[in-house]
C-alpha cells in the first residue's frame, strides 16, 4: 500500500494532506462525550441467579432478629410472644412463596428443580432452574394463560410468575408454548434474543452457542434483540445468534436459496460452497440469493429486509417485493427508499398477514385496546 494508505489506515507514515484536511474539517463533529445518565435497573432483574435472590427471603427474618437484638430486654411473656409471631410469619411467608411459580401438570422421567426431582402437582418456583435429561420432559402450567412443554436435554429458569408477567429464561434445549393471553404477558429470554408472545403456539430451540430458532405454529411472536425486532407469523421461523440482531423471518417451506441467503445476509455465515470470503461480498451474495429465490408468499421476508437495507440494497429489495406484491395506492418507491414508516406499514397491510394494528397493539396495555 502507498504511504498515504498507511496513514489513512493506522495514522502512521507520511500523512496524506487531503486526509489531514478532512480530519481538521470534520473533527469538530466528533463525540462531545457528555456524561451518561443511567436508570436504576428493575429489582426483579432476570440476570440475577437464585442465590442473589436469597437475601430477599431472609431479610424479613433478619429484620426481626435485629429488632430483637437492639431493643431492651423484655419480660419473658413478651419474649415468648415475639418468638411465636416470628415463627407464624415464617410459616405464612413460606406458604405464600409456595403458591408462586408454575405448577407441574405432567412429566416423563425425572426432571429436576434445583437439586430435587419434581413430582406432578409440585411447583417450579420463581428463580428455580428446571433441568431435563435425555429421557425426561415436563409440562408446566403458565398461570392461567397456557402451558409450556419442556423437551429433553433442556435447562429453563422461571424468572417471573405474576398475573401479568410470566417470564422464562431458556439456557439450552427445546420447548413448546401454547399461550392464550393478551400480548406480552408471556416472554422467553434466550442468550441471544427475547421471544415476546403475541398470542400463539410456538417452539423454541436454544443451542449450546446461545443461538436459537423460533418456529411459530399459531398466532404471532415478536423476537427482539439489540433494538431490532422480527415479527414471526404461523408457519414461519426466525433464527438468532449471540451478538447479532434477530435474523430475518422466513417461512419454513421457503426454498433453500432463501434460507441459505438469509444465513449469509443476517449472520455472515458461509452457507453455500464458494461463498465469498469478504463479509461485504458475502452479504451481497446472500441478499441476491434471497431476492431471486423468494416466492410471492416470501413477501414476509422481503418486507423485513426493507428495514435491514439501505441505498442500492433497499432499491433491490423494493423491486423484488413490488414484483410479487404490488405496493398499494399511496406507497411510492421514493418513499420506501427514504424509509417512510407510514408507507412501510401500508405495504404490510397489503401482504395479507393482517393489518399493522394486530402487532402494533402489543405495545399498549391490554386495557387501552379493550376500551377502544
Amino acid at each position, binding site marked *: 500500500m502507498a504511504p498515504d494508505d498507511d496513514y489513512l489506515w493506522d495514522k502512521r507514515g507520511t500523512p496524506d494532506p487531503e486526509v489531514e484536511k478532512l480530519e481538521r474539517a470534520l473533527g469538530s463533529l466528533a463525540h462531545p462525550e457528555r456524561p451518561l445518565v*443511567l436508570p436504576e435497573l428493575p429489582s426483579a*432483574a432476570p440476570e440475577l441467579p437464585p442465590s442473589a435472590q436469597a437475601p430477599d427471603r431472609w431479610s424479613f427474618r433478619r429484620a426481626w432478629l435485629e429488632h430483637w437484638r437492639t431493643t431492651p430486654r423484655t419480660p419473658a411473656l413478651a419474649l415468648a410472644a415475639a418468638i411465636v409471631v416470628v415463627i407464624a410469619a415464617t410459616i405464612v411467608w413460606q406458604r405464600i412463596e409456595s403458591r408462586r411459580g408454575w405448577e407441574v401438570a405432567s412429566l416423563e422421567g425425572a426432571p429436576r428443580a434445583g437439586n430435587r426431582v419434581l413430582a406432578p402437582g409440585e411447583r417450579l418456583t420463581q428463580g428455580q432452574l428446571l433441568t431435563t435429561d435425555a429421557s425426561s420432559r415436563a409440562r408446566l402450567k403458565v398461570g392461567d394463560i397456557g402451558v409450556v412443554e419442556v423437551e429433553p436435554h433442556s435447562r429453563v429458569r422461571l424468572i417471573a410468575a405474576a398475573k401479568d408477567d410470566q417470564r422464562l429464561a431458556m439456557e439450552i434445549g427445546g420447548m413448546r408454548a401454547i399461550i392464550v393471553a393478551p400480548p406480552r404477558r408471556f416472554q422467553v429470554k434466550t442468550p441471544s434474543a427475547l421471544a415476546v408472545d403475541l398470542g400463539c403456539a410456538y417452539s423454541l430451540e436454544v443451542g449450546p452457542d446461545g443461538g436459537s430458532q423460533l418456529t411459530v405454529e399459531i398466532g404471532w411472536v415478536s423476537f427482539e434483540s439489540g*433494538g431490532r425486532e422480527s415479527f414471526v407469523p404461523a408457519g414461519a421461523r426466525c433464527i438468532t445468534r449471540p451478538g*447479532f440482531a434477530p435474523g430475518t423471518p422466513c417461512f419454513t417451506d421457503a426454498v433453500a436459496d432463501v434460507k441459505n441467503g438469509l444465513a449469509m445476509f443476517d449472520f455472515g455465515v458461509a452457507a453455500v460452497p464458494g461463498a465469498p470470503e469478504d463479509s461485504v461480498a458475502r452479504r451481497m451474495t446472500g441478499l441476491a440469493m434471497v431476492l431471486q429465490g423468494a416466492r410471492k408468499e416470501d413477501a414476509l421476508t422481503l418486507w423485513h429486509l426493507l428495514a*435491514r437495507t439501505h441505498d442500492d440494497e433497499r432499491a433491490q429489495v423494493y423491486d423484488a417485493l413490488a414484483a410479487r406484491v404490488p405496493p398499494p395506492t399511496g406507497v411510492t418507491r421514493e418513499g420506501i427508499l427514504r424509509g417512510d414508516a407510514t408507507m412501510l406499514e401500508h405495504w404490510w397491510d397489503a401482504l395479507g398477514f393482517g393489518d399493522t394494528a394486530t402487532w402494533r397493539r402489543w405495545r399498549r396495555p391490554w386495557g387501552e385496546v379493550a376500551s377502544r
Partner: protein
Amino acid sequence: MSDDLATQVVAARGGDRAAFGQLYQRFGRMVHGILLAHGPREEAEDLVQEVFVRAWTQMGSLHEPAAFGGWLARMARNRAIDALRTRRPMTPVDPELPAASSTHDEAIAVIQLVRALPESYRETLVLRLVEGLSGPEIAEMTGMTPGSVRVNLHRGMALLKERMGAVHGA
C-alpha cells in the same frame, strides 16, 4: 479482546455502573460515529445516550463478552435506522454546494457528502475522520475484520475525493 475489557463487560453485566461507565468511555465514539453516519449531529448526540441506556438495561442478553463491541455497534445501527424511518428526509446532497463560510459549514458540507456514500464506506470513514479512530481500532471495536475495514477506508476515501472534486470542480 483484552482482559480488562472482558472484566468491564462481565462487571457491567452484573450491574456495576462504574464498569459500564468505562465501557461508555471506551465505545462512546464508536456509537456516536455510527449514528452520525446516518443522521444529523444534533440527533446523534441524543441517540448516543439512548443506545447506551438500552445496552445497560439489556446487558443480561449479552451472552459473550467478546461480542460486546459488535453487539453495541448493531444496536446503534438499528437505532439509527429506526430514527431514519420516523424522520423527514434529510436535505439531499446539492451538487451546487455554496462555498463554506466557516469551518463548521465546511464540516457540515463534507459530512453530507460522506452520508451519501454507500453504507459500508460511510460508517468507517466517519469513525476514522470524525471520531479519530484508527483502522485497527475500528476493526476491534465493531467486530469487523481488519481487511474489510481497510478496504472500506480505501474505497470510501477514493469515492469521497472523486465526489468532492466533482462538487468543487477540482
